């Protein structure tokens, strides 16, 4: 057993500097398509290729609904005019506006998270799990996973909410003390993703319990989920869930495209 401590020390610090600085390592995010102008007909062609209806034509261009994007890359590959690609990861958006104030300063350094799997495919959960690993280490920011709703401040939900998980999810939410916040993680939790609303699933968390913050992605990379936790506590600004055709593009944060 003696060897473990030196082995751990020898490994050094691997933890990302986000949110104090941008994470620029390659492969931390799949990116998302960005809305923008498109040549005549090109926008329609992109919208036709999008299997989940995330891309729609608008004002001589395309708009992208990030709740629906499932990273299939069908708009990006094998087309003459692919949309711009935003390589970042700060995608989480607050969706309750003024109705939910950020949790107060009492929560700033110790926040308990209950993670509920409402039918995910395994990827979102794996990425949530990475937050507790050395690379992302959310503990340094005061976030901890708890196994019980009674001591949870934040409910993180992944998956489209299957018929079987609806009741356990509602019970877990109701068992949490107020104030509480819900973070829906991943395209399935936001819109049902490729599973959609169906006979077996609800097509997203918002139809079952109130959602405060949505984190797009299929799965969202760990940094996006971390951003979601920072947004729900008011420590980072919220992003937008929709990339319109006509908005001025934000400055690119990192190099690289798919």
């Amino acid at each position, binding site marked *: 057993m003696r060897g473990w401590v030196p082995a751990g020390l020898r490994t050094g610090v691997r933890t990302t500097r986000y949110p104090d600085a941008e994470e620029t390592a390659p492969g931390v995010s799949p990116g998302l398509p960005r809305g923008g102008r498109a040549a005549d007909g090109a926008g329609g062609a992109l919208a036709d290729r999008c299997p989940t209806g995330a891309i729609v034509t608008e004002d001589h261009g395309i708009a992208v609904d990030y709740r629906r994007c499932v990273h299939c*890359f069908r708009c990006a590959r094998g087309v003459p005019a692919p949309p711009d690609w935003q390589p970042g990861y700060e995608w989480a958006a607050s969706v309750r506006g003024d109705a939910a104030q950020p949790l107060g300063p009492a929560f700033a350094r110790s926040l308990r998270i209950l993670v509920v799997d409402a039918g995910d495919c395994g990827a979102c959960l794996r990425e949530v799990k990475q937050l507790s690993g050395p690379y992302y280490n959310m503990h340094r920011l005061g976030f901890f996973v708890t196994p019980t709703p009674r001591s949870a401040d934040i409910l993180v939900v992944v998956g489209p909410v299957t018929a079987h998980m609806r009741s356990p999810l509602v019970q877990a939410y109701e068992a949490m003390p107020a104030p509480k916040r819900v973070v829906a993680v991943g395209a399935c939790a936001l819109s049902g993703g490729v599973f959609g609303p169906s*006979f077996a699933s609800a097509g997203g968390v918002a139809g079952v319990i109130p959602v405060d913050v949505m984190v797009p992605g299929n799965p969202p990379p760990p940094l996006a989920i971390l951003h979601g936790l920072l947004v729900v506590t008011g420590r980072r600004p919220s992003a937008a869930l929709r990339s319109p055709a006509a908005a001025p593009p934000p400055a690119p944060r990192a190099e690289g495209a798919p």
Partner: protein
Amino acid sequence: MVCAVSEQDGLRDLGAACRERWPQRVHAAYEAARRTWRLECRADALVDLASWLVAERGVSFAGLVVEEAPAEWVLRYLFYGDRDTGWVEIVARCRKPARAMPSISARVHAADWHEREAEDLFGLVFEGHPRLGDFVLHNDVWPEDVGVMRADYDPAVRRPRPEPDPAWQPVRLVEAPGAFWMPVGPIYSGVTESALFLLETVGEDVIRAFPRLFYKYRGIEKIAERRSVDQVLLLAERCAATSAFAHSLAFCQAVEAIAGVEVPARARALRIVLAELERLRHHVGAIEEICESTALAVAASQASILEEDLLRLSGSLTGHRYLFGLNVPGGLTHDLAQGAVRAAADGAAAVVPALRRLREMLGVSSSFVDRLEGIGTISRADALAHGLVGPVARASGVRRDLRVAQPYSGYESLDVLVPAEEDGDGYARLRVLFAEAEESARILAQQAAALPAGPVRAPAFPVAAGAALGWAEAPRGAAFHWVRIGADGLVARYRLVTPSFTNWHGFHLAAENFAFQDFPIILASFGLSAGEGDR
């Protein structure tokens, strides 16, 4: 090692043997292109035929595919043999309105859950099966006999949620003072998939553990129906995203077999590269879970670092950390640059010494090894009877691997080392994971060094009507995707047999007579996915 595969080989006499044993009751035909014997079988010969195939002819049960035709039910029992024996398919029919078929699970135990599932989802009855009802569809959510997979099921019809039965109580199996059921789940302990485990216990010692699964049932087989191949590909990829590439590969191979499309050599080689990268990453994640279950934090962190390294490597190589959006029927969506593939192979190779160090340190950490040795043991006989697959089977001495038994996508010409252990306990499963991870990195490097040039996608081809089976050795074991495409070009039936579904069936074998605190370790050493099993 390349074996010369002559026509039918080990099952050469199957047709004659069937004619002799079951005259007029079994009609055998051999389809050379798919190396498949198709045995049309009357219901009264089904049980004997199936058990004879498994017991005497050495084939393994792969899955049951139920199809609904207007006038009859068609049941297809799929079996796979070795490299030189190919496949066997028993086709039995049940004329409507009858819906009863004999159960084969008493003699072919691997079919047990397939029959229960078909009973629950289609409303078929398997006569002689001891335990039907309340399986995939939980009785507290779905009305009895709702039959969601039947053609006449209408999801728009609102059905009242069943009222809980006030007289219900768990079946009491252990009669002992202080014996009780301890439910664990469906939401439990940190970041875990949803599943319920009923632990039958007298305090510290657990007599048995019964998993109650399908909390994550998304109805993938049902919602795939009447969708286009492109749409179903997304479902195949996302049925279990930690093995997304293997599943999308199996699905694409089924579609390619239906259309008779030849996949270009470069695409076949790149598919092996990506499949092995995925296996490596998955196994490192599974090792991380095992370390974490024993509360060995440094080891878990070390494995977690390696997993994230491989996720980033996958992300920079392909654009997606879980290898989404790469497989398409006919090849890959886009080519990968030679330099990038070589860099990825180097990155994967760099993981190997770190994994070896981790394995060595774990091997001398007695507090760790003590908690895995002799825990969750599965005998070889049990593994065979339940038809277990993947690392779980190989740790029990069943050296079964589709990359070798039924090679695809170019594995024919590779010499894949399939590690196996005899002990069948948690530690054996861990050793298999380490050995396989290393072998994956080796295959990856070998393939990356000798990639053929050329296109990565076959010329566009029309979607053809027909049915075929696609298969792949996913990280957790054998995955079978059976696809029927209708005359309208849409998917008419999609049957998805996943390694987690197969192995959950055997989980209870490992979860008997153990101490309560061993439960997370047994669970982690199985490395199963609830999402992959529930579908």
